[in-house]
């Protein structure tokens, strides 16, 4: 690997386990490898409980993986107290789903933004930096004197983004950043995040359950099911020609606007309990194409720029089904 490569976030065989007394261990993330490069938006889609948020927490060092490694700028990301956090890790920032919970209700926006401004910036320059941050998220300078409750949900999320930008991050992990917002503010916040990545050459891991949105903005899309990435590909290719049956099912479940009412396709069954995950391919019990080999866990096959973990891609085993997907 190129050691002079710019700061990139990489996951290698990451596993995250939760244990609670008297219950079986839950492997929320069961071996994920993924990379996010500067200037790149990687969309991570999947349904609730698939392990997306567990992966996000590991990515910024909020919790430790039980196996595998997370590296950022070629250094391992390790959960440390914030006092011992290295400069490199400050360059990794997170935007959460709920802007109400990520801002302190009892402090002014300005004082919260100042927290994040690097210590090297001193004196009047600190205030100026706060105003720059507010300007970047299209909020007036007067917002600095106000409190979180004085803003709408969309404005609050823009302020939470300003807070994440204060330490001059190079990589943003956005976990469902617009899920709680209305259509008009959703578009504003999404455009803001995409603009940041493009203008500042940052990387972004954009986690969402909204496939249409990820389709719109992500350069690469990774689809997660029950703790594993089942398919990852350049977004356009993934949508044009999904290779994993779960990807197909997810795309087909998105309601479309059209001249007549047309119900989205239904995927049989429910997501199994991760504590009791099926053996072999985890999607097997719900897969319309399941066949004998699926009892074994499928390897992730590299198809040149895209990867898929499905026995169907083994063309010798099931050529006709793969094509009809």
């Amino acid at each position, binding site marked *: 690997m190129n050691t002079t490569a710019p700061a990139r976030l990489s996951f290698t065989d990451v596993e995250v386990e939760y244990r609670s007394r008297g219950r079986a261990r839950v492997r929320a993330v069961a071996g994920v490898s993924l990379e996010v490069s500067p200037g790149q938006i990687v969309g991570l889609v999947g349904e609730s409980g698939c392990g997306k948020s567990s992966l996000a927490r590991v990515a910024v060092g909020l919790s430790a993986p039980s196996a595998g490694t997370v590296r950022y700028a070629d250094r391992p990301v390790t959960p440390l107290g914030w006092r011992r956090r290295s400069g490199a890790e400050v360059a990794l920032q997170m935007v959460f789903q709920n802007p109400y919970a990520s801002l302190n209700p009892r402090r002014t926006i300005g004082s919260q933004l100042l927290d994040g401004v690097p210590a090297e910036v001193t004196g009047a320059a600190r205030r100026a930096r706060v105003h720059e941050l507010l300007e970047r998220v299209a909020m007036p300078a007067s917002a600095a004197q106000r409190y979180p409750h004085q803003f709408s949900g969309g404005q609050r999320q823009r302020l939470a983004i300003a807070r994440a930008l204060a330490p001059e991050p190079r990589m943003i992990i956005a976990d469902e950043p617009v899920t709680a917002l209305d*259509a008009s503010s*959703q578009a504003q916040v999404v455009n803001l995040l995409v603009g940041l990545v493009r203008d500042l050459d940052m990387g972004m891991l954009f986690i969402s359950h909204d496939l249409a*949105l990820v*389709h*719109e*903005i992500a350069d690469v899309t990774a689809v997660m099911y029950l703790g594993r990435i089942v398919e990852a590909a350049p977004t*356009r290719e993934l*949508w044009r020609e999904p290779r994993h049956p779960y990807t197909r099912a997810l795309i087909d479940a998105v309601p*479309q606007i059209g001249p007549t009412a047309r119900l989205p396709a239904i995927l049989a069954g429910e997501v199994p309990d991760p504590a009791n995950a099926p053996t072999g391919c985890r999607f097997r019990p719900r897969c319309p194409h399941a066949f004998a080999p699926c009892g074994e866990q499928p390897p992730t096959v590299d198809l040149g720029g895209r990867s898929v973990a499905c026995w169907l891609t083994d063309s010798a085993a099931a050529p006709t089904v793969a094509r009809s997907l």
Partner: protein
Amino acid sequence: MAPLLDVDSLAVTLPSPRGPLPILHDVSLTVDEGELVGIAGESGCGKSLTAQTLLGLLPPGAAVTGSARYAGTELLGLDPRGWQRVRGAGIAMVFQDPSAALHPMLSVGRQLTEHMRVHLRMDRRAAVRRAVELLDQVRIPDPERALRAYPHQFSGGMRQRVAIAIALAARPRLLIADEPTTALDVTVQAGILALLERLRAETGLAVAFITHDLGVLSALTTRGYIFYAGRVVETGPTGALLTAPTHPYTAALLGARPHGTQTGGTLRPIPGAPPAPGEAPPGCPFHPRCGYAEPSCGTAPPPLTPAGADRSVACVVRPHLEVAA
């Protein structure tokens, strides 16, 4: 034939510490027997308050004018006993969050049968029989066992099915569903949408479906109402409404959503923010954000006027609107 639900010039004013707030203005809508009608708009536009009015759930001190007739009965001004006859057996409701709608400490069976024993005066055995039938109707596997289970033992989608079963217990003719799939994953949402459509087809149930998702509106409903700041701004057959909008707000909402063209992440947000409930500007409530506004738009709210086959729009400018692909 008269519509099952006929709301005419409904206006609702809610009390607030700063004086009365007019929330709904001149709302007229109808739902026919066995019809799937959609009500769409952003948060605070009055969609949920309309539902609350139709179930007599307005807070004390609310002032209501206009008329709302269900199966010929005027609902506004009903006494508590009158409301009791309408709710459940006439109009039933399903909410966004099934966990909040179900009692966590009571078994599903108890919640289903208690309702029927009180409202329909059934004996225990008949109520249990009907409960099994209902759970089967909403496609809950193994209904007998489900009766003994508690809400937390079900997934979000299954819980919403239980909530729908409870709503259907007294054989209502109109179901008001307030964002019933917003908290659910797309694949689970697809199942609930199909369930509502099947109930409509099999039992002639009419459904008023409240949503902020235009994709869901298009996939499920045959006729739709677009709400903005407590007014209906446009109505018509859903397909026509969403493929050829005539109100600038409908067009702007459509433009703000991802349209699957991979524009590299530039959604078209609607400038500004919707007014806070009760603080709509004079004239057309959308005019401060509208790209087509003329000086006259700020004087009086435009009335809903016919605009083609079964369609009405509240806009005096009627610009030519470009529709997102």
